[in-house]
């Protein structure tokens, strides 16, 4: 009986979609693992380390989540980073992204099915999304894009269900709940909940009756959906003393863009046209040109039909990432370099192109709509277009930009020789390191996380910079990083450094010191 039940369930399209997605995800992750791509991005390790530090650090606790990156993806990784092996291989992050990928696939299918009521169309959306190589690569990494896509898809799906008054209250609450989770995953999520809330305003304006109900629903939705934002502001205030720490901090995205601004390489800053163009090209390269155009046709076709308001709202919500990235590039809060439009004389021509994968769900859903509206021969043609697009990706005609960025772009993780040296020679003891400057990888240098003194281990960090001999056995510094600036460039501290430590590794950029066992600290 039980087997028959399972067999029956497996025949349901949702289960087929989920199982296929799981298989695609596992294969892609295995590929990334084998080729060492899981930790290709410098940020990948940082995400893993944040999660790891909550449970394993000199000063463990949730305060390690910090105040710049939103916390939910890191919180989700905590159970997995508990295993040192999963942490060091990056698989702890791959598991979270992979699960998010499977759920996203399922909800891309469900959303496409919800608006077409057609399983093959839903399946077409699923294939466009699930087989997109940029999505497949990102789901194998600890990056936070897939958790965000997952919560965005869930929120959108329930929002659409709410718009069509299907289990209205429950759908509204679920849309708000997943919006809340999205808002705690990436800042894109803030835009999502903002757009969804704006949709209520539109509903209010277009309704002649039940306006009071729309106001109530708006409050019900916003209270939960924006609670994540309020929590984050409160967290920043309590832990870091400034509710807008994530904007004002030296580690914020905005502060980072200042470097490019000073060099005149922030093309989209206060230039709406460039901002639009950058995101358009990036999303197009992520999605794949053929499918992108066909998705756009599907979108126009979808908007041409009635009921217009609900359709417009769905497009608005699914298209949120476009607006978000255009707006943040315009405001100088984010940056993309992509070879197609970034001038050749810039230092870097590939950076943050992964932002473009946020448009894959929208294109998938509207590609499905086009598929649904097409005649049988056109459906066959559309299917062949998916295959063509995949072939172009597979044969390198269409580069997998997210992977390239991780390998050769500015997003890639540096792998200096010093970390290999340290991995071979580290024999225990506390290690002082400016982790924010990514001097070396903690993961690859085999140093246990609880032995690292970094900026988040106050007061160890401050005391070590003040009196290097007090805690660390090892000091790793990179030219111009915090340790370098405050110890090596300070003549008094430098003298102390050489008194208590021996320089054991030297390279043009990185110096490693080890405590001199013959000199005792005072």
């Amino acid at each position, binding site marked *: 009986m039980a087997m028959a039940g399972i067999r029956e369930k497996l025949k349901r399209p949702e289960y087929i979609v989920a199982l296929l997605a799981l298989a695609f995800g596992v294969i892609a992750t295995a590929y990334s693992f084998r080729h060492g791509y899981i930790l290709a991005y410098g940020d990948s390790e940082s995400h893993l380390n944040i999660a790891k530090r909550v449970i394993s650090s000199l000063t463990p606790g949730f305060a390690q989540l910090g105040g710049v990156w939103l916390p939910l993806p890191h919180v989700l990784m905590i159970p997995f980073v508990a295993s040192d092996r999963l942490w060091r291989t990056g698989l702890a992050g791959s598991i979270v992204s992979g699960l998010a990928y499977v759920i996203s696939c399922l909800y891309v299918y469900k959303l496409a099915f919800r608006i077409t009521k057609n399983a093959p169309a839903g399946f077409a959306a699923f294939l466009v999304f699930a087989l997109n190589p940029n999505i497949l690569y990102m789901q194998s990494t600890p990056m936070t894009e897939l958790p965000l896509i997952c919560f965005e898809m869930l929120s959108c799906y329930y929002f659409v269900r709410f718009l069509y008054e299907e289990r209205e209250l429950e759908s509204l609450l679920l849309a708000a709940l997943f919006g809340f989770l999205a808002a705690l995953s990436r800042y894109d999520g803030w835009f999502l909940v903002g757009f969804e809330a704006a949709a209520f305003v539109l509903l209010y304006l277009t309704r002649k009756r039940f306006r009071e109900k729309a106001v109530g*629903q708006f409050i019900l939705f916003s209270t939960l959906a924006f609670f994540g934002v309020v929590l984050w502001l409160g967290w920043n205030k309590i832990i870091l003393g400034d509710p807008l720490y994530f904007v004002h901090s030296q580690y914020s995205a905005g502060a980072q863009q200042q470097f490019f601004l000073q060099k005149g390489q922030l093309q989209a800053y206060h230039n709406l046209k460039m901002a639009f163009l950058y995101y358009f090209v990036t999303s197009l390269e992520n999605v794949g040109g053929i499918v992108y155009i066909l998705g756009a046709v599907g979108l126009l076709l979808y908007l041409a039909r009635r009921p217009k308001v609900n359709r417009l709202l769905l497009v608005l919500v699914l298209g949120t990432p476009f607006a978000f990235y255009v707006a943040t590039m315009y405001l100088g809060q984010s940056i993309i370099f992509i070879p197609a439009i970034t001038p050749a004389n810039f230092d870097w021509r590939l950076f943050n192109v992964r932002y473009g994968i946020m448009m894959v769900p929208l294109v998938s859903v509207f590609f499905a709509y086009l598929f649904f509206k097409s005649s049988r021969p056109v459906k066959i043609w559309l299917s062949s277009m998916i295959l063509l697009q995949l072939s172009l990706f597979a044969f390198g005609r269409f580069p997998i930009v997210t992977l390239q960025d991780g390998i050769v772009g500015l997003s890639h993780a540096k792998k200096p020789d010093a970390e290999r040296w340290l991995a071979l020679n580290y024999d225990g003891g506390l290690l002082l390191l400016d982790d924010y400057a990514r001097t070396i990888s903690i993961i690859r240098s085999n140093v246990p996380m609880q032995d690292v003194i970094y900026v988040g281990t106050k007061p160890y960090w401050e005391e070590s910079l003040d009196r290097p001999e007090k805690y660390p056995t090892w000091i790793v510094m990179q030219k111009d990083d915090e340790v370098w600036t405050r110890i090596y460039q300070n003549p008094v501290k430098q003298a102390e450094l050489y008194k208590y430590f021996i320089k054991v590794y030297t390279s043009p950029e990185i110096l490693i010191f080890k405590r001199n066992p013959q000199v005792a600290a005072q």
Partner: protein
Amino acid sequence: MPPKLKVLIVIPRRRDRLGLSKKIRRSLERNNYSCEFLFTDIRKGQPPPESIGAGCVVYVNENLDKSSGQIIFQMVDRLAEENLDCLYLPRKHRLPAGLAAGFSTWFSRILFGTPYVPVSAQVVAYRPDVAMRIRRTMPDAEFLIKASSAGYRISRFDPEDPPSLKRETAGIGEFVRKSYELVRLKFKNAEVIPFTPEAVRIRGRGFYYKSNQYVHFDGPPHGENAFKSMSQKQLFGLILLAGALLAALLVSWRDTVVILIGALTIAYFADLLFNLFLIVKSFRSDPEIKFREEELTGLDDGKLPKYTVFCPLYKEWQVLPQFVSSMSRLDYPKDKLQVLLLLEENDRRTIEAARACRLPDYFQIVIVPDSKPKTKPKACNYGLLYASGEYSVIFDAEDVPDPRQLKKAVLAFRKSGGKVGCVQAKLNFYNPRQNILTRIFTAEYSLWFDLILSGLQAIGAPIPLGGTSNHFRTGDLRKFNGWDAFNVTEDCDLGMRLSKAGFKTAMMDSITLEEANSRTKNWLNQRSRWVKGYLQTYLVHMRKPRSLMKQWGRHILTFQLVVGGKIFSMFINPAMWTITFLYFFAHARFGAVVKSLFPNPVLLYMGVVSLIFGNFLYLYYYMIGSAKHGHYDIIKYVFLVPLYWIGMSIAAWLALIRLIYVPHEWSKTTHGFHLFDKKIMKQAENIIGNTLVDGNYVS
């Protein structure tokens, strides 16, 4: 000539000297009384006079002189003639007169507060139905004090020829011993003395306690009702706990506070998860019994059972016409309807209003005799004696039930089978927008009835019934001994008792609209009664936790959270809010202190989650409840709910004080404020879809 009366003489064997029993027998038989002797000590248990058919019992506590036969005959005669319950011959003392008088005054009047009972007697004659358990070494004193407490008619017998003093009479040593015994007697728990069968026949079921008479008509037996808030074991446990807490605080106040806060945090966290679980359950399974239109229209009126509606009213003459209108609009064959207006004997104004009202013939005015306790469940128990319907329901005087509710209830019982002991309709208000208080009250009711109760039903948990619109099979009600007349939330208690007996409570898709309390003081009064009742219910059902565990299994935890946790949190909330407030808004000064209360990081995180997510979620639940009920316009007022919670905490502390001092007092909620506001009347009529009061029933 047959003997006038059979008398049972009880004499301790050691007292039967100098032919005392023979003298007594002779004297009584001479006067045409027959007698039996029992040579025992009354402390070993009172003799069963019924077994020998005695009409009077005489307890001879002390040897008398030769006139004893004559004295006993006179006492028996007087007892019969004056229809007294008890007659005693006071003891003589060797003490100086002043000391004896002081002794008597101190012990009888001051210590026991009874004007006519001496602390000692030589002979006690009493009617056989005066039954008390005597345990102490001073049987005469204990007997008389208890009889006095029980409200029996007691008189003193002063013979013309008093017996002379004997050797046994009291000296100083005896005086000291007796004093000690009497003080012990005072501090021994007073005893509940049930009415005799004769008294039950005349006055209804009841009992005496500390000279007060209580008539409750029905209800669970003592030990299972709320007459005493706590059992001796509970009281002992509480004192022990308080003592341990005090000792722990003295030894290490910081560690004690940390442990306490840790325990509270775990409890809060569990409650938070449980409520979330209930709300998800209520959405996922929607266990409410629903009805199709054809099911309702297809009911054959001729085959519908007779239905009894109980409506207890107290000082509610103003809402009477509204209630009569609501009842007259019930879609139920009127020949099968019995509406019992349960009016209190001392409430002349409502009685007059009811008599003046043009009541339809299916209404019946029942005057509930004036007695303690004066509660709604007592009135309902009395009403149960008159109920002739197969099914019964309680409506409050200001209720406006869905006209098809009775039919729905009949259908619900038929659909759900014999295991459902009660069908509960949802409650909401017809004046939700009267002011901010009524709006938040409405949100709270919507949350309770539309989400929490249906969640509880979904998991098969015991359901605390709502005060009105709970429907029963009348036979079941009788089987369960009706309501606990001493519990001021008898509905909650009955829900628990039903569940303990294996019955389920089902929610049905029908609404009764009530008047939301629109005045703060009135609301506070009502709320403190509810909290007091929840406290009573919790204490009553936790008297035997082990047997409760056997009956409920895991639902004993549900009970802790739904009844215990709900009230407990009201007491503790102000402290927790203060901690939260200090942590967030005075972080510089108190942040470290607050943090030191949570030395364990897991507890700290649980505490933070409970305080931040907990408070947020509870507030949000009110919004969901309002939305589920369709009160979208009320959602925005839910942001004010923290003020409402403060009110609830004040009410909780008030309830605790009232539980200690006036445990059975029913703080009456005043109804009918809406009747004087045309705007609110209009609002109510819009919601009901009809006028509130039918002009035909206005007297």
